[in-house]
């Protein structure tokens, strides 16, 4: 019997229940002839049974803490989702309203320019400024808030 046959038998023993019929037949025949491999198979079987039945318990406090943390995180994610939905809806509303009102505003500014005898570029610049003013104001507000938040979180992180 070659060393290769013993190695192969022990590899098959380690694989356990995943053997094909042919492998099982060969292994059974080998174990019938080789006491060393039979001894190895017994020892491996005992170890595997012990490993399988080894008791292990997680702490119930750990489970409760994990469940609580998961619920809190789920709440945070839900809030973030709702905020994002609100922002997306606001953006859509702004886009629709600006599409509807831009033409009216343009005509209004043109009429005002003619009525007050202003040169065309002047009322056009006025229109652009008026049109862009809410966006600028909102951007500045967001920037100010962003700085404020990052300052707060930095303090919290430090301590």
């Amino acid at each position, binding site marked *: 019997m070659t060393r290769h046959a013993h190695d192969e038998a022990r590899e098959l023993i380690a694989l356990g229940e995943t053997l094909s019929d042919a492998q099982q037949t060969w292994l059974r025949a080998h174990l019938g002839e080789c006491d060393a491999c039979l001894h190895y198979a017994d020892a491996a079987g005992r170890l595997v049974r012990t490993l399988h039945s080894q008791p292990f*318990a*997680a702490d119930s406090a*750990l489970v409760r803490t994990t469940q609580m943390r998961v619920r809190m995180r789920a709440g945070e994610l839900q809030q973030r989702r709702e905020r994002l939905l609100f922002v997306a809806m606001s953006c859509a509303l702004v886009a629709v309203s600006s599409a509807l009102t831009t033409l009216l505003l343009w005509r209004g500014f043109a009429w005002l320019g003619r009525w007050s005898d202003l040169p065309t570029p002047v009322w056009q610049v006025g229109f652009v400024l008026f049109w862009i003013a809410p966006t600028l104001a909102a951007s500045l507000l967001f920037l100010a808030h962003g700085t404020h938040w990052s300052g707060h979180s930095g303090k919290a992180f430090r301590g």
Partner: protein
Amino acid sequence: MNATAYCFVNVMESETSAIARGLRRRDPDLLDRLIEQYQHRLLRYLVHLSGNRELAEDLFQETWIRVLERGHQYDGKHEFSTWLYAVARNLTLDHLRKKSPISLDGLLEQEDHAPLEPADTRPAAWEVVQQHQQAERINAALVGIPVEYRETVVLRFQEGMALEEIATVTGAKLGTVKSRLYRGLNLLMGKLGGPQA
């Protein structure tokens, strides 16, 4: 026989699909149930993978947070436990990589790793002592073998995973899993004073 197998596969698929749907909805009740269902198995795997109970408990919590955040990535076509172990494994590896000065060997060499606690099944006093001693011996032997072998042995013989599932969790080839299993079992038997190949 075939009809029984077909029914079993269908039931399993509908269960994994239900889990996948629940995870997409981020259903907290489902997550509570899953945490309870997999508490012992997942923690045991993490303890063996990290070699440190305290770290394993942190990783246990982080794993479930990640399951919540990335639950939509679970397709419901495979066993949930396979996906769960893969998430836990990736988290553990990320953690160990971040703590670069502490190598995995370093973790294994730490002396303060807590021994695994036996479940309170209230047997006779001598049985408790015997069980505890046996568990300690095996855990000490497990900690003494390289992590890739330990992980494969634990997944196969404690978690009862199929070789293909272990390959999915660890990202290793089937042949590598087989070889790790053989060498791991061999090393473990050597540590416990049994016969070796």
